[in-house]
């Protein structure tokens, strides 16, 4: 496992890559050892590329018989110490949610790439639609926390996938990369850094051998009153016996009584919420003097950048606050970014406005939150510009 295969790292340089391929390469650079998946439009290129690359890096890419088998294979691989991932689209996510919930319970780290397409049901399979944002937040029965990152270009699909693996290793929760049919098929240059630079960033999966003193699962450190998530355990080693039970359990894996279940639930939710300062990545553009703030994530951000440039030419003070991490929702950071805004615009590639609702939740009553919903079609800069102009009147 510690052996580093050189083919894992593409030679340093610039590569023209499709979005889905950049994501797959990011995963390989992060040390992906097992990919289990079932091809589904528009995520197919991920498994297609990994089928070729995984044998080269000494890993395994397995096309299972369906989505249920895929996600269960991913869990199995992760439990025995392989960094594991799957990629699918909305219908696949729906099928896999039972096992995602299982993984959240047992704090099994894995990365989930959701290349979103239109829905509900089958939908227009080749069109983008950010309609899994809600499902990702509540991806299964029960209460648990997740992390979801939303890249906007091919370089970020590579970089943020590495980061997603690191988050998965650190917080041991379901970690999602949110892409879509459009972003997955953009071709752009990806700069691959030196092997050493990547290795510096990557958190490795290692065998811990002090099983007498270390807890298996997240625990409350009595001294500091902090939730600590231990490194992921590896089954099947000669070192320790591990308890794997699917009930509310204590840090050593033994079931707890119903009266103590809340401590367990707190653990798997607050291990993420307490670390929002490290997990919630955001970015801003022209925000310093902005009176109108656009809050966005994913591809609409790029349309928003363009519309901000156009509006600034007209002398309108508008800026973009971008969520790189969509879940957990960065309440404080958003509050801070919109505190001086007289209006907030949320262009979202869905109709319900899942993130718009979150923005409304943290906005002072009286400040309008204007949604720009789109389905299947990608926001044109003029769509956003029109709303900016109306608000600025």
């Amino acid at each position: 496992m510690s052996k580093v295969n050189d083919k894992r790292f593409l030679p340093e340089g610039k590569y023209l890559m499709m979005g889905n391929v950049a994501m797959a390469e990011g995963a390989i650079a992060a040390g992906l050892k097992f990919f289990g998946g079932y091809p589904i439009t528009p995520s197919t290129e991920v498994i297609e590329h990994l089928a070729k690359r995984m044998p080269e890096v000494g890993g395994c890419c397995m096309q299972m018989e369906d989505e249920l088998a895929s996600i269960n294979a991913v869990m199995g691989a992760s439990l025995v110490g392989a960094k594991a991932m799957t990629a699918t689209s909305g219908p696949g996510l729906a099928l896999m949610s039972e096992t995602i919930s299982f993984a959240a319970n047992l704090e099994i780290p894995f990365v989930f790439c959701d290349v979103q397409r239109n829905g509900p049901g089958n939908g227009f399979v080749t069109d983008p639609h950010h309609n899994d944002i809600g499902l990702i937040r509540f991806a299964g029965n029960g209460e648990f926390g997740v992390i979801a990152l939303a890249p906007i270009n091919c370089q970020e699909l590579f970089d943020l996938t590495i980061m997603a693996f690191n988050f998965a290793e650190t917080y041991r929760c379901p970690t999602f990369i949110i892409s879509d049919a459009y972003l997955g098929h953009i071709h752009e240059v990806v700069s691959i850094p030196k092997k050493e630079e990547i290795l510096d960033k990557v958190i490795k999966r290692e065998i811990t051998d002090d099983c007498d003193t270390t807890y298996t699962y997240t625990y409350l450190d009595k001294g500091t009153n902090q939730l600590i998530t231990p490194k992921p355990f590896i089954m099947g080693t000669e070192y320790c016996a591990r308890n794997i039970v699917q009930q509310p359990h204590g840090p050593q894996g033994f079931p707890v009584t119903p009266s103590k279940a809340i401590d367990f639930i707190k653990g798997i939710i607050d291990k993420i919420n307490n670390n929002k300062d490290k997990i919630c990545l955001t970015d801003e553009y022209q925000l310093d003097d902005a009176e109108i703030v656009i809050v966005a994530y994913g591809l609409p951000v790029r349309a928003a950048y363009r519309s901000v440039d156009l509006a600034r030419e007209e002398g309108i003070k508008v800026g973009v606050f971008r969520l790189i991490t969509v879940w957990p929702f960065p309440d404080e950071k958003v509050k801070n970014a919109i505190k001086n805004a007289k209006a907030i615009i949320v262009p979202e590639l869905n109709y319900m406005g899942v993130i718009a609702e979150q923005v409304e939740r943290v906005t002072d009553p009286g400040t309008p939150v204007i949604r720009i919903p789109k389905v299947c079609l990608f926001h044109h800069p003029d769509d956003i510009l029109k709303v900016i102009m109306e608000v600025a009147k």
Partner: protein
Amino acid sequence: MNRYEIRISGFGGQGVITLSKMITMASSIYENLAATQTEAYSAAARGGRCWAEVVVDLDRDTKQIDYPKALIPYDFLIVLSEESAKDIKRDSLKTGDNTGYLIWDPSTIKKFRLAQKFKSLRIPVQRMALEKFGDTVYGNSILFGAFTALSKIFSEEAAIETIRNFVPKATLEKNLEAFELGKVEAEYFLKELEGEKK
């Protein structure tokens, strides 16, 4: 920020997407400009109405293209099928100097009256490729040559490196010849344009 908007349209299988990738590679990898390519992603790419767009930022300081799709009016249009020619409108292309070019293929488009309104270069790509090189796939390199010479957004060296990268070794010579053919057509056309101006 100085966006150069390119759109290529035709039917799936003509090399629309390959050509767009070649333009993207030449501009971004070899000319160090920011570029983004987007393409038709559906059954259209396999026989239907197919399109691909490339946005290149001619400003060397730009690191990333903001809006990834090409915005109308375009700087450069390549139209390869009757169906896609119908989508072109009077205001589809820019009108300034060194921009607003249209390349179209009379071997696949019978009538394209609107083409006269633009700086349009008529190259029977499919026929030329078949007659000179024995296969329509070389049409791509002809078009790539014409695009390189007309747009001038990347150097000829960048273009040739791209071809080396894209085509199988055995066909490199033929592809370079095809590239040259397209380039010559475009250069001749540019001279004609200059003549008209005078």
